């Protein structure tokens, strides 16, 4: 009960700190007001922003025809600018010259090999490791594999000209492909929300400096209750600010929050917990307000920019390593994949990573903030 009680009063104190609320609310709203028009106006995205994909089909079998039909379907054409190449060499040249993001190549004998149960593949060439083209091909292959499996057990299916991957790479509301700028708005929101870590830092440092910590130390509560209650209260405060920002952006700016509400809320809840825990840990270790805030700013720049670099596909090994521990990156993936119908497996893995991070950091916070035995 002490945890909830401390959390309640921590929450109460936070929501009365109007200057901090103003900072947390005003910063994202101002940024979204200035830069967020792309998200709001995704209907206006033109064909020139579609991913250009070259393809050459060297096979004349049944499966290759299905793939041709899949590539030229209305749904695929809505998300991709598919260009047929006259030869393998010509397709590769288009990628090298930057005229196409990727080149899809179907080898001769592909259909026959597949129908005979041999291992075969559709080849995708491109500079980007996780390109939309790869998802497109994966979607088709999954569809084919599923059909093949059904046939294997005596069933009969017909391959559809479209694939579930089409939905995964297009905006569900409009059927238009989002670009990096659309997604950047969500990352920007995470970057600003991370400053909510200061709630944790200030609650720890103020409790110590204003001597109120003493009252918890002399009271008959569990030795983790003070830190646990503060962590819970600060996380919920930050989460509440987030909900407010979502509501304002949704109804005042018409922002796109049309992903799964559960995924969006869970992402922000875990992100709030992580940011608060990091803030409290810094508060326990550093003990000085100015230096703590400076560290939060530096950490936010490092973790946030690593996610930004990856989101704009600026390949860098250092940032890729930082992304492994960046809550911004996982939050960004979970949010944008949910809102723009990205792969469900990646949403799950992102949420799982956030949850693991939240549990680890919360444990460390409780350990550092525990009352020492007398």
């Amino acid at each position: 009960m002490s945890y909830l009680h401390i959390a309640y009063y921590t929450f109460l104190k936070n929501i009365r700190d109007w200057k901090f609320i103003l900072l947390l609310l005003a910063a994202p709203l101002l940024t979204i007001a200035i830069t967020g028009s792309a998200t709001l106006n995704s209907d206006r995205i033109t064909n020139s922003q579609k991913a250009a994909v070259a393809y050459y089909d060297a096979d004349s079998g049944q499966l290759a025809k299905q793939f041709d039909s899949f590539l030229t379907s209305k749904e695929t054409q809505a998300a991709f600018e598919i260009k047929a190449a006259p030869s393998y060499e010509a397709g590769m040249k288009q990628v090298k010259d930057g005229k196409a993001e990727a080149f899809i190549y179907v080898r001769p004998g592909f259909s026959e090999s597949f129908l005979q149960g041999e291992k075969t593949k559709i080849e995708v060439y491109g500079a980007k490791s996780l390109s939309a083209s790869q998802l497109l091909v994966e979607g088709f292959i999954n569809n084919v594999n599923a059909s093949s499996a059904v046939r294997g057990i005596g069933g009969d299916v017909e391959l559809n000209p479209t694939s579930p991957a089409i939905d995964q790479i297009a905006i569900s509301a409009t059927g238009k492909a989002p670009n990096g700028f659309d997604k950047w708005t969500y990352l920007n929101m995470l970057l600003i929300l991370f400053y909510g870590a200061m709630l944790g830092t200030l609650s720890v440092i103020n409790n110590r400096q204003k001597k109120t910590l003493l009252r918890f130390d002399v009271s008959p509560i569990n030795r983790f209750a003070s830190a646990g209650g503060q962590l819970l209260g600060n996380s919920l405060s930050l989460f509440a600010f987030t909900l407010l920002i979502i509501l304002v952006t949704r109804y005042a700016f018409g922002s796109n929050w049309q992903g799964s509400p559960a995924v969006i809320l869970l992402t922000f809840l875990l992100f709030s917990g992580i940011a608060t825990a990091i803030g409290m840990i810094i508060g326990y270790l550093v003990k000085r307000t100015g230096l703590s805030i400076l560290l939060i700013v530096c950490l936010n720049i490092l973790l946030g920019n690593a996610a930004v670099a990856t989101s704009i596909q600026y390949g860098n090994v250092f940032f890729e390593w930082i992304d492994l521990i960046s809550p911004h990156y996982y939050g960004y993936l979970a949010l944008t994949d949910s809102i723009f119908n990205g792969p469900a497996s990646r949403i799950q893995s992102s949420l799982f990573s956030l949850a693991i991070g939240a549990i680890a950091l919360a444990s460390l916070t409780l350990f550092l903030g525990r009352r020492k035995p007398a």
Partner: protein
Amino acid sequence: MLVEVSNLVKRYKDVLAVDNVNLSIAEGEIFGLLGPNGAGKTTTINAITGLSKADSGEIKIFGKNFKDSELAIKRELGIVPQDLAIFEDLTAEENLCYFGKLYGLSRSLLKERVSEALEFTGLLDKRKQYPKKFSGGMKRRLNIACAIVHRPKLIIMDEPTVGIDPQSRNHILQSIRQLNEMGSTIIYTSHYMEEVEELCSQIVIMDHGRVIAKGTKEELKAMVTVDERIVMELSSLNFTLVDNIKQLQGVKDSYVNGSELTVISKKRSKSLGRIIDCVAETGSEILSLNVEKPTLEGVFLTLTGRTLRD
């Protein structure tokens, strides 16, 4: 005994903050811990309340060992810290609810106790106000209210009247007496000897981490009744006069404080006449003369050679 401290030792690196302190506090007492800043009072209090770990020694509260019965002891303990320990962005009532609930009081009982504590400290009509709008004295009273909201058996007050106006100080001292009459045992630390003298039934004087004297105020004063303290205000003062007085038979010490000359002489040494003659010889006029009764300040001065505020 309600509190028993045996051979308490606490070091901070090379500094011996508390040196082999022994204390016995009976139920129903107002126990005074007197000493200058840095004497080891707060360190002793912190060890008693479990805020800091003693290097050696044993502490028993309510007959229980602190290490074995920490939570049970804490339930009956109230602490008024030297510094204000209140949340400025919660109202007076919310502060009491916050801290009172930590002691496991039920909602209805907590409401009742919060009103009692606010009334007791004269803050009932300010209960919805934020402490940032309070005067220093009101904040101190709220600091006390937070410590007594759960009606503890033992209340530890660490210099609760520092930096407040005389009116609030009187209110606080009156409250302490009332709390004691209501059954609470109180440990009161201060470097204001007048407060300790007025309130406490048992007094311990600490200096440099050690207990240098203990007993009732009468017992402590008896330690210095061998000396008389004569304070004179003179029309003019010079060092020759001070030196001449120091040479007089029966005079132990003589020093100047502003326009006042203080002379410490052995009791019944009949030195007063000789001192007056000595002053008259210099042509100085005695504007006032007072032979002071021994005080705790005098006791401390006699024991340490320093005043409490040195």
